[in-house]
């Protein structure tokens, strides 16, 4: 009997020691993402929102600057990146503003800090919403900020996941935490369903019209909506994470092409006026909201090595081939 309890005691101590040891090891490992940056980095720079010819992005190359906002010239994206102190999980910049989404560390249920920054990446406004960061966008003028968060019911609820897409009018301060209540038309009829989910907002240059994904009953739609009239209508089926081209005539998006969970999407471009759809030359499955480098090329990120990701580019007209743009990056924002 006595030896039995001794075994129990020893086992408990071993288990506790293992848990504490592993946690300590993980702490050391995540504290720095390695001791040196695996790519050339110029740290501690005062960055500003991208001027024409510059690209800002989230640095995902292993090293002390992992997760920080970084900048490279669009013409030579392989040049040493300049990083600022700002860390974000998702990043966007346009028209003299920037938007940073960061999951608050170690908080359950998850909370996302949403920060609006001015052109020198100084904080203008900050607030938090429940959920984990998924997409971040600004309108071309920088006035409208839009984001998507994943919201999960926790274990007791087991409601599964849903997304919550929100919009902030930076000028008036009007905040829409979720566009879920927005009246919506599908095939010319008012659409109601309890399972409606929105994600992936992209704004037009008039700061009023925006496009986003709506999902309901296993289908996804491209929805065109007006912010001030606050209503939307479905334009096209099987469109996720639209991204409006600089001239506003096309959207790049991910299109579901396979039931295979490991590779469900292809990038495509839809001409809004004609409804003509072009599948792009990238054959790998892309799970990102694309960004336009210019009128002819889109940028998107793909998973890289060791939890990192790389930014790739591909022509927007279906020709050519994908090319590596920035190693160890995500959330590109291009100055125009």
């Amino acid at each position: 009997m006595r030896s039995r309890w001794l075994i129990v005691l020893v086992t408990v101590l071993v288990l506790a020691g293992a848990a504490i040891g592993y946690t300590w090891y993980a702490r050391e490992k995540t504290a720095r993402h390695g001791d040196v940056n695996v790519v050339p980095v110029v740290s501690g720079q005062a960055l500003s929102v991208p001027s024409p010819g510059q690209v800002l992005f989230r640095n995902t190359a292993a090293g002390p600057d992992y997760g920080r906002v970084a900048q490279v010239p669009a013409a030579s994206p392989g040049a040493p990146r300049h990083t600022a102190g700002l860390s974000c999980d998702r990043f966007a910049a346009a028209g003299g503003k920037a938007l940073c989404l960061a999951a608050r560390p170690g908080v359950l249920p998850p909370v996302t800090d949403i920060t609006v920054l001015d052109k020198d990446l100084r904080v203008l406004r900050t607030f938090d919403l429940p959920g984990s960061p998924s997409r971040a966008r600004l309108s071309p003028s920088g006035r409208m900020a839009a984001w998507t968060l994943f919201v999960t019911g926790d274990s007791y609820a087991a409601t599964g996941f849903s997304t919550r897409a929100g919009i902030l009018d930076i000028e008036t301060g009007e905040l829409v935490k979720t566009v879920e209540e927005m009246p919506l038309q599908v095939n010319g009829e008012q659409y109601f369903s309890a399972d409606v989910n929105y994600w992936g907002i992209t704004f037009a240059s008039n700061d009023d019209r925006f496009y986003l994904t709506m999902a309901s009953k296993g289908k996804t739609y491209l929805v065109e909506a007006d912010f001030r009239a606050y209503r939307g209508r479905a334009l096209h089926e099987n469109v996720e994470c639209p991204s409006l081209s600089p001239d506003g005539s096309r959207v790049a998006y991910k299109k579901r092409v396979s039931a295979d969970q490991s590779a469900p999407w292809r990038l495509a471009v839809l001409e809004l006026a004609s409804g003509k759809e072009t599948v792009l030359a990238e054959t790998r499955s892309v799970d990102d909201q694309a960004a336009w480098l210019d009128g002819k090329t889109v940028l998107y990120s793909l998973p890289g090595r060791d939890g990192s990701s790389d930014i790739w580019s591909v022509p927007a007209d279906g020709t050519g081939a994908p090319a590596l743009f920035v190693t160890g990056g995500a959330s590109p924002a291009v100055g125009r």
Partner: protein
Amino acid sequence: MYIATSRSADSAAGIPDPKGTARRVSGNVLALGMVSMVTDISSEMVTAVLPVYLVLGLGLSPLQFGVLDGLYSGVTALVRLAGGHVADRFGRFKAVAGFGYGLSAVCKLGLLAAGSSVGAIGAVLAADRTGKGLRTAPRDALISLSSEPEFLGRSFGVHRALDTVGAFLGPLVAMVVLWLSLGSYDAVFFTSFCVAALGVLVLVVAVRDRTKPSPVRARPSLSESAGLLKIASFRRICWWAALLGLVTVSDSFVYLLLQRRSDIAQVYFSLLPLGTAGVYLLLAVPLGRLADRIGRWKVFLGGHVALVCALLTLVGPFDGVLLAVVALALHGVFYAATDGVLMAAAGPCLPEHLRASGMALVQTGQATTRMISSVLFGWAWTAWDLYPAVLVTTGVLAAVVLAAAVVRPLRRVEVPA
């Protein structure tokens, strides 16, 4: 025997017994409660971080996450029946339950090993659920067999209360580990494994397999398990539990309704279930005792009346904090009066050598109809809009509860062979 008899005479006479809980709940039930508590800490740690890990850590899309989530909750039904049958067939309740607990524990390491492969994660989650399905019926049978028949409600109440404590602690432990490890999900998975292993250890050391000597019998066959439905009282429990499950509005819809009605709730949406769990935790033992005293089926039906009231509150005139508090309290009462109480009600109808199979049968029937119920309610919500859907569902639920009260399916309980 003398003590137990005199106490039951006390409780029959309504004499309060302040220390009764501790004395009448067998050590084995407490041990099983501890195992469940520790295991729930472990599993709720993972459940709490899993969505963030999958979406943010691995970059899974909503679609992929939805599929995994479905897998995660859809695997158990058949496995539960199998677990119950095997436990009865070989008379090895502790072994089958232990295998289930052990499988789930190993799965926590599986999450570490699976890395970023979606397929591997799906497989690990399915295995984890299999472990949960396997262990549930033998464990409940063991609780039932370790308790005096007149105190079954209390025993299940104590077990479920301990279980819920674990569910509360899990996310907190996960937060502490995330904080200490600077946000490492791997550290959460590994710690969760260590906690789960501790649960298995407690099971191995402190839980005894069926405590009463059982008459030597032939191993029960599958057809004998299915033949349980020939026992009239048990058959009625199964049917009515399944029927009530079919008209029960699932948790997620209750919380969604609450969210629609109450502005404060929007930000704290994911905390709403804590309200339900808190009330459940507080009332599991008192309502279990009440069930032993006034009748388990009465309390079980009473729980459904509480759900009717909760739904009426949700479409009623109140608003804001009051709405949330009243609705969540009633929802908690529903859980406290139904979850363990149903097992306590089913126990005495079942012969000892088929107890795990029988419990698996009730649980699977109820779980299946509840799944159908959520589909139906979702459909009604879409077709008729929210309020009509709730009102119609509540009306049907009230009608079924009334029918069950009138028919009194358990007015006579035959003593099983």
